[in-house]
């Protein structure tokens, strides 16, 4: 009935400033790489601007990561990654944001953070992605006042109330399932004429007595003064404007990469994702990329794990040749 999780380990900052490898980002890709490299005696530092776990840690239930037949909560899975990396000696520093990566010469890069400057032979960028904003009226103004990007966190606050979820893809439906446990009704609004989500999720949510779907509709505005009262949307086929009353609006319309601090350093595609080759190397020597932040990578834990492992193997080879 009750669960008791230990996360966000209380830790003192490391005094060491020189590493073989610095991993920027403590999500699935970064922690996997750290597991491999620290196990291989490569002196590894993971810098994470929040708590480790990345996007996966905010996912209520992950059902398609192999090895967990009943599924596992995202945070629990990511805690295991964290523990495994620490077990092999990786240094993991949470709540320390990287502000600049500065290549100095072959085999030496400086990593500037909000707290220190580190030196390293190699950098892995695994900064992941974050929920995309719609940039429509009311979204910013009502954030935290009914507009949310974390159903796992805020869903319980809307017990017995009417909720709208914008986006009926995998994330929208997966997180919608948790909101359905609390809310009186959940209305999904999807821009496309169909749900792009996995069929198993569609079957679960569409068959739920409390769910309603609007496909091919675009949300134009989130309404409310001090708190959300509803949304205004347009039927993309007929042009009809419709209003939905709701106390909460959860937004799941995709993700955007966390690469602002990398502009002008490595090649990015037009959406800001990092261009890299099959061995995870970016356009700059000594800098690799892995996970959701790589161009053309679907946001999946399994894929991030694969990337992290490949990056670690490439790192080992590179460091041995230095």
């Amino acid at each position, binding site marked *: 009935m*009750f*669960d*008791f*999780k*230990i*996360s*966000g380990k*209380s*830790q*003192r900052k490391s005094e060491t400033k020189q590493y073989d490898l610095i991993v920027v980002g403590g999500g699935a890709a970064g922690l996997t790489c750290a597991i491999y490299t620290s196990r291989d005696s490569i002196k590894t530092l993971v810098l994470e601007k*929040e*708590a480790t*776990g990345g996007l996966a*840690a*905010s996912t*209520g239930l992950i059902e398609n990561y192999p090895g967990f037949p009943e599924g596992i909560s*995202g*945070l629990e899975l990511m805690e295991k990654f964290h523990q495994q990396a620490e077990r092999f000696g990786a240094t993991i520093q*949470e*709540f320390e944001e990287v502000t600049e990566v500065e290549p100095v010469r072959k085999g030496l890069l400086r990593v500037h953070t909000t*707290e220190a400057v580190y030196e390293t032979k190699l950098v892995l960028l695994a900064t992941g992605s974050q929920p995309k904003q719609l940039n429509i009226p009311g979204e910013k103004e009502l*954030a*935290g*006042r*009914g*507009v*949310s990007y*974390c159903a*796992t*966190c*805020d*869903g*319980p*606050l809307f*017990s017995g109330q009417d909720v709208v979820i914008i986006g009926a893809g995998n994330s929208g439906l997966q997180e919608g399932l*948790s909101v359905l446990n609390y809310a009186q009704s959940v209305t999904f609004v999807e821009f496309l004429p169909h749900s792009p989500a996995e069929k198993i999720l569609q079957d679960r949510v569409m068959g739920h007595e409390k769910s309603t779907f609007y496909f091919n509709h675009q949300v134009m505005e989130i309404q409310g003064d*001090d*708190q*959300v009262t509803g949304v205004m949307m347009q039927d993309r086929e007929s042009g009809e404007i419709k209003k939905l009353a709701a*106390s*909460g609006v959860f937004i799941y319309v995709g993700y955007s990469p966390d690469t602002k601090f990398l502009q002008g350093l490595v090649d990015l595609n037009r959406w800001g994702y990092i261009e890299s080759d099959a061995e995870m190397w970016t356009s700059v020597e000594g800098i690799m990329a892995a996970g959701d932040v790589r161009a053309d990578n679907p946001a999946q834990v399994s894929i991030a794990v694969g990337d992290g492992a490949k990056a670690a193997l490439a790192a080992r080879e590179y460091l041995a040749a230095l």
Partner: protein
Amino acid sequence: MAFLNDETRGQVAEMLSDLPDQVRLLVFTKPAGCQYCDVITELLTEVAETSAQVSTEVYDLTVDTEKAAEYRIDKAPAIALVGAQDYGLRFFGLPSNYEFSTLLHGIQVAGHGAAAHLDAQSKEYLATLDKEVFYQVFVTTSCPHCPPAAAMAYDMAVTSDLVNAEVVEAQEFPRLSSQNNVMGVPLNVINRSERVEGHAPSSQLVAAIKRSLR
């Protein structure tokens, strides 16, 4: 029935193994209208069993009114985390799921009498305080972003005698949550006036404290 499995119990024991000071967990319950009062008492007993430095005391909010007033407890379930002195650390609700980490962090900082993460600038500012700061953090137990926000409040409270930090499980106290218009967590409310949404950096919270004291 034990709430903590062997693995978790071992982790807790390790985390609480080096506390320099004794930590008293004062639990306030009430006989009616408290869904988790029995659970919280049992849970904290199990936590205290992992460390010789941690003990629990159970009080009835409706009977032990002087003790409740002494520790500024007005609702249950509640926990006052008291180290070498009362640093003003409180948790209202059952610290289950992700909030178990907040409880452990509170015990650690109370037992060390020092913050775990707070930066030097924030410490310098807190040393200059000359007015009381009432720092509330509203959380849900299913929120993975909430423990670091709550930890920040506890770190500030243990750093300054003038800061009192209350972590409130929003679902268990719907009226208080409604009064504070809690629609997203974590929500930091400073001196009942300044709101900071999300897990914010210490600089942002210090700025909110400054605004609240103007």
